[in-house]
């Protein structure tokens, strides 16, 4: 409960991706309007998603300036391709975050690959120190719910999923880091996500 803090301005209570159906529909509607050139609608879409988009980019790329660049590119892509969002394939927030994730992974694998690989990956996979991040990271009800779902993963599943999703490593690299066969890392990532999906009730 000590993680719970008021949601700042601009972030609607109850996140659209995790929250109620109407929130999700509202976001999808904003995207549809964006596809027709409605900049104000896209501004509202931005306000409802920017913390997650920027936070994800920052978590993977780590450098705030680079995170901002990646997030900006992702939003411009989202604007450009907003008419191509297909609600049958998932939520509008999920769609955006998929774009952000792919962009940030491309970034770390190309431009920053050399410097980032020099660091010890274990520094980044130790459990997050609350004191260090509490000020920066918003703790919403949705975040609590997701953390609860993540806690249902086995340790090895969580480790593999985090290295893949937040570390931006390929499953082959994950396998090497964890000293397990390639097939094992691949399976842990999948099994971990399936458990996460089921725990969060996504897609059912």
């Amino acid at each position, binding site marked *: 409960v000590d993680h719970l803090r008021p949601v700042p301005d601009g972030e609607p209570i109850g996140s659209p991706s995790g929250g109620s159906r109407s929130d999700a529909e509202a976001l999808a509607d904003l995207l549809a309007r964006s596809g027709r050139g409605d900049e104000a609608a896209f501004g509202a879409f931005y306000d409802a998603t920017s913390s997650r988009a920027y936070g994800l980019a920052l978590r993977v790329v780590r450098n705030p300036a680079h995170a901002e660049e990646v997030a900006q*590119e992702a939003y411009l892509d989202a*604007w450009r391709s907003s008419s*191509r969002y297909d609600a049958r394939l998932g939520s509008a927030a999920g769609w955006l975050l998929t774009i952000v994730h792919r962009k940030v992974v491309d970034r770390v694998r190309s431009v920053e690959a050399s410097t980032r690989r020099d660091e010890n990956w274990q520094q980044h996979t130790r459990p997050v120190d609350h004191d260090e991040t509490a000020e920066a990271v*918003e703790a919403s009800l949705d975040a609590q719910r997701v953390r609860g779902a993540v806690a249902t993963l086995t340790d090895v599943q969580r480790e593999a999923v985090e290295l893949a999703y937040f570390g931006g490593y390929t499953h082959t690299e994950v396998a090497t880091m964890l000293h397990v066969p390639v097939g094992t890392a691949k399976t842990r*990532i999948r099994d971990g996500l399936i458990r996460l999906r089921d725990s969060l009730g996504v897609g059912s």
Partner: protein
Amino acid sequence: MTDSSDIHRLTGAYATDAVDDLERARFEQHLETCVDCRAEVAELREAAARLAETTATPAPDSLRASVLTGISQVRPLPPVVPPGARHAVPSEGHDDDVALPPAARPSAVRRWTPLLVAAVLALVGGIGLSSWQPWADDDPSRISAAEQVLEAPDAEEVFLDLGEAGRATVVRSRAEDRAVIATEDMVPAPEGRVYQLWLQDPEDGSMIPAGLMEDDPDQTVLLEGSAAEAVAVGITVEPDGGSEEPTTEPIAVFDLTEAT
């Protein structure tokens, strides 16, 4: 490609972008035909995106300003036109003949193909128009020419498993007029020899030199020359420095007429 249960298990890695370019291309080819994997990828992407709740961080004001300024200068893309609207629908009752324009297969391809396709476990298919990326990344300034082809909305591809010799995927974009080959675990060319790439001319079936490959098992090479109309990409083993026309039978032929 190994057994099919193995490729199904790549859904999680694919959904988290934990794949390299070649794996992505191959898996997207698999997605084309695997309904279960498509559904699972959509769900796992959604689940993975929820992880971003735990790292939400207020974005700097400058980001909002630059995004809103940026979009005012960019026109949203039109919606995707359903593929059925672009092509004549194949006539009913000819399932064996899966919509391949007969004229698009010069006999020269046929001469080359049996060698290989018989000798090799060939897995040929196409991505066609669909893209499993949920967005259209068409900002050409950021990406290399090879990436431009790989990410082109009209990218189509042919994958070949060369057995012990490795695996290779050819991706062609008619809009970009270029083709790219990506190899994985490719055995090096024999001493004093080099792998040479060829584009097959649609008119007379002749082979046009399209560049040499490095001795690197995993590489992505942009083929030289116009690829929009080429009917096949071939690889031959040539003397160092390459040849003006193939001097040996190809070790691999990618039939681009099969790619859509």
